[in-house]
């Protein structure tokens, strides 16, 4: 139990003093980093746009003409880069806070937004759309709809299954049902890939996660839904802290853990399914970001929520920008990149693991 058993962690606490940085500073720095990352990401790409022009175009978008810019640059930013950058920010934001909420709900720092099988369900849904050829008739919308339906369906089934068993250990049953249903839907996806033939590449590309299909069409409602869900989540963070005492411990403080589970799972499922439906099943962001932020600002979910949201947005935005620029003109699926950076970091966190979870 004492710190000598976790030399790495003790070292970080003592010598780097991460926890001593005020959380307000962390949030401020993250917000500035996100703005910088957005600016640079819009400038970079197959055609590199000078940074000052990028800024001018952005001002123009909001109705403030400052200087003349090339029309082609304007079009690239308005039609291609801006929607893509916004999608990356929103998806990263969602995945990180969803992961954080799942970790809090299941009192397990190894939980991810996909712990209840959303990813497997969404993959199966998207694969079904591709194999049935509905994509050609309905366009990209069909793919998003298939993924969204698959993801939410799995969570609904998992939730129903877990409620069959009465008594305590509700969250434990939820996780196990999630694992089982996830495996089942992964099998469905594999079967669909087996059937698919030439579309195989397309399915796999989708599963690995990429933001290549970003456009303006969904952003007018995707962004407000994300913000509203985040605000509602904010009101539950104090109770989520107390859930660290276990379900009965929280109950002794007058909290109803089951209703909290219901509300938070509904919000997380809605947001994650939306993110997955536009970006595919991008891994590791939801697992790693809340961890890293917990090291920086401590376990208080009220601060962890905005910190994870900002950090997740930066993480996915930076990864996506790298993914589309390192092998230009070929794009790497961004999920590959997040896994390449996320997995080693995850191993590092495992080395610091102590009994009862990470933290």
């Amino acid at each position, binding site marked *: 139990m004492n710190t000598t058993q976790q030399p790495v962690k003790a070292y970080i606490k003592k010598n780097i003093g991460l926890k001593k940085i005020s959380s307000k500073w962390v949030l401020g720095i993250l917000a500035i980093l996100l703005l910088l990352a957005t600016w640079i990401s819009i400038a970079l790409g197959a055609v590199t746009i000078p940074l000052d022009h990028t800024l001018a175009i952005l001002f123009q978008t909001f109705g403030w003409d400052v200087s003349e810019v090339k029309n082609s640059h304007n079009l690239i930013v308005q039609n291609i880069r801006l929607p893509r950058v916004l999608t990356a920010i929103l998806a990263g934001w969602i995945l990180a806070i969803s992961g954080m909420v799942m970790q809090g709900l299941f009192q397990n720092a190894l939980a991810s937004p996909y712990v209840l099988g959303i990813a497997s369900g969404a993959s199966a849904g998207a694969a079904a759309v591709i194999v049935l050829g509905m994509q050609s008739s309905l366009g990209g919308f069909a793919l998003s709809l298939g993924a969204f339906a698959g993801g939410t369906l799995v969570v609904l089934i998992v939730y129903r299954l877990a409620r069959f068993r009465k008594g305590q250990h509700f969250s434990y049953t939820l996780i196990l049902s999630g694992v089982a249903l996830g495996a089942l839907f992964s099998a469905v996806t594999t079967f669909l890939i087996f059937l698919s033939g030439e579309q195989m590449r397309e399915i796999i590309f989708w599963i690995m996660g990429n933001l290549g299909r970003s456009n303006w069409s969904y952003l007018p409602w995707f962004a407000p839904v994300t913000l509203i869900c985040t605000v509602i989540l904010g009101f539950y963070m*104090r109770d989520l*802290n107390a859930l*660290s005492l276990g379900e009965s*411990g929280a109950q002794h*403080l*007058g909290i109803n853990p089951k209703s909290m589970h219901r509300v938070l799972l509904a919000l997380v499922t809605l947001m994650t399914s939306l993110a997955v439906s536009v970006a595919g099943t991008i891994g590791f962001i939801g697992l790693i970001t809340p961890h890293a932020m*917990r090291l920086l600002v401590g*376990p208080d979910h009220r601060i962890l929520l905005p910190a994870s949201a900002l950090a997740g947005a930066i993480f996915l935005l930076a990864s996506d920008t790298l993914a589309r620029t390192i092998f230009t003109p070929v794009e790497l699926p961004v999920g590959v990149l997040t896994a390449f950076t996320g997995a080693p970091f995850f191993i590092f966190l495992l080395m610091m693991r102590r009994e009862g979870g990470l933290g």
Partner: protein
Amino acid sequence: MKVQIENVSFSYDQQPTLKNIDLTVEPGTLLALVGPNGSGKSTLLNLISGLLKPSQGHIYLDAVPLEQFKPQQLSQKLAALEQEHPVSFDFTVQEVIQWGRIPHRSRFSPWTDHDEHIARNVMQTTKTMSLAQRSIRDLSGGERQRAFIAMALAQEPQLLLLDEPTAHLDLKHQFEILELARQLTQQGMTLIMAIHDLHLAAQYADQMAILNEGELVQHGPPTSVLTEETIKAVWNISSKIVHKNGAFYIFPRHLQP
């Protein structure tokens, strides 16, 4: 707070774990619940705290039926600590103690001077001030127990339920917890505590209730209910009880064949 338990039974999966319990605890008393493992002590505590619902009978807190309290109302009057307190993340002792104020605050209300005053008071009572910034997971058993009692006290309860608060603690820390318990009951709090150590229970408790196989065997002042016959009947151990200078010693001899 007065606690009345009237003809309460509880079955888990058709298996009766408590049978027709009748028990009244007067305000300001320390009641020790004793009995062998599996005799139903924890179940009884969970019934009083409202975590479980009796399959028969009623529990009254100050003459109000337990089921009439809303969860938040109940948590303003009653605090309960279970045997194990797993905390999943590295929260500080101070943060944990602040959770004790949740019953008295809405989701939107800020931390007030009154909340701070109470948090400081309970930290003083439980001697946890110096632990405030430590992680709850880095504490020793005794410190941990004190921190959780501080959280429970921050609820400003009139009734405190403790399930084996002295388990795994060394002698000094066991005494610390029981001294604290006595001090709280002297201030008018009602305290019900499940405990295994019969000597400590006899020394500190005002009343003792002995449970065996889900039934209330004896209830009364410790020295009058703890007899050689009762110990033989409940724990299946033959013993010698010696009263000397007002103190009371149990010498267990051997298991009954």
